[in-house]
């Protein structure tokens, strides 16, 4: 047997601090190309010409997603709000420099991620650095293994899933969390994530692998058969 036996521990629920809610079956996952609606480039062009209503429409469209991003990176509401505000204000101030070689939303995510990272570094100067080498391969092997059964996420109410996702992502090390949030929540490409964080593509891949494996391990305590009792 490759993996050690998992000792079940009853899940201890924490108050929600994150902003993740699973989509319902009637509202399935959408790809970034459809999240950023087709008229985005028209709004950006109008905003560049000085149409403030067009820029406000862009803010209305993306404010919740950007707040989720800054909250997921900083895990601090005050910092998340400041980072979100500054991201929108800076994107407006620098809109004329936006080259439109990528989607406005991707550009906005990069600005917001940098604002959030700046605050995270300030608040945890000794705990967070993207320059740190990642752990060795020994740490990667799963230690806990248990059957989750079919569609384990459907055993929980939406608010309960919200709390679970917030709790597990909160416990992830910041340098892994940031990469996971950009790649798997905001759905930036590996290249876009590397560019946004100023790290290499292999570093993104290495941190993403570790983040995904650690999150699987953390979800095990909730999704393992009997974990809901």
């Amino acid at each position: 047997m490759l993996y050690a036996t998992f000792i079940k521990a009853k899940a201890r629920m924490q108050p929600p601090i994150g902003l993740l809610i699973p989509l319902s079956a009637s509202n399935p996952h959408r790809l970034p190309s459809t999240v950023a609606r087709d008229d985005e480039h028209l709004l950006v062009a109008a905003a560049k010409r000085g149409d403030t209503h067009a820029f406000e429409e862009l803010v209305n469209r993306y404010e919740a997603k950007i707040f989720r991003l800054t909250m997921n990176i900083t895990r601090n509401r005050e910092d998340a709000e400041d980072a979100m505000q500054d991201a929108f204000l800076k994107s407006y101030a620098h809109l004329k420099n936006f080259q439109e070689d990528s989607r406005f939303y991707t550009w906005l995510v990069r600005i917001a991620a940098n604002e959030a990272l700046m605050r995270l570094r300030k608040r945890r100067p000794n705990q967070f650095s993207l320059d740190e080498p990642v752990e060795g391969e020994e740490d990667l092997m799963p230690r806990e293994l248990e059957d989750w059964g079919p569609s384990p996420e459907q055993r929980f109410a939406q608010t309960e899933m919200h709390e679970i996702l917030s709790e597990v992502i909160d416990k992830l090390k910041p340098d892994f969390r940031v990469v996971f949030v950009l790649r798997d929540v905001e759905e930036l490409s590996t290249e876009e994530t590397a560019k946004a964080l100023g790290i290499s593509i292999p570093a993104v891949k290495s941190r993403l692998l570790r983040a995904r494996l650690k999150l699987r391990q953390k979800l095990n305590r909730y999704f393992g058969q009997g974990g809901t009792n």
Partner: protein
Amino acid sequence: MNCKGVILEISNYIDGELDLPVKEELERHLEDCEDCKMVVDQTRLTVEIFCDSKPVELPADVKSRLHEALHRKLQEKGN
């Protein structure tokens, strides 16, 4: 490919970024190793659950402060 090899390639496999010979080798291992198959399936589901999550509505006070700041900025620029 052994179990460690599967774990090291799990992200690339989920993202469909493995070269065909490596992918086939990994899938041959999964046919015979239930533990690795479980880890691969659960890791894929983990990604899907987070990827499918949607943001909640912005809290009213946060939204109000954002739009106030924005209006100040727009007025500054207009003057």
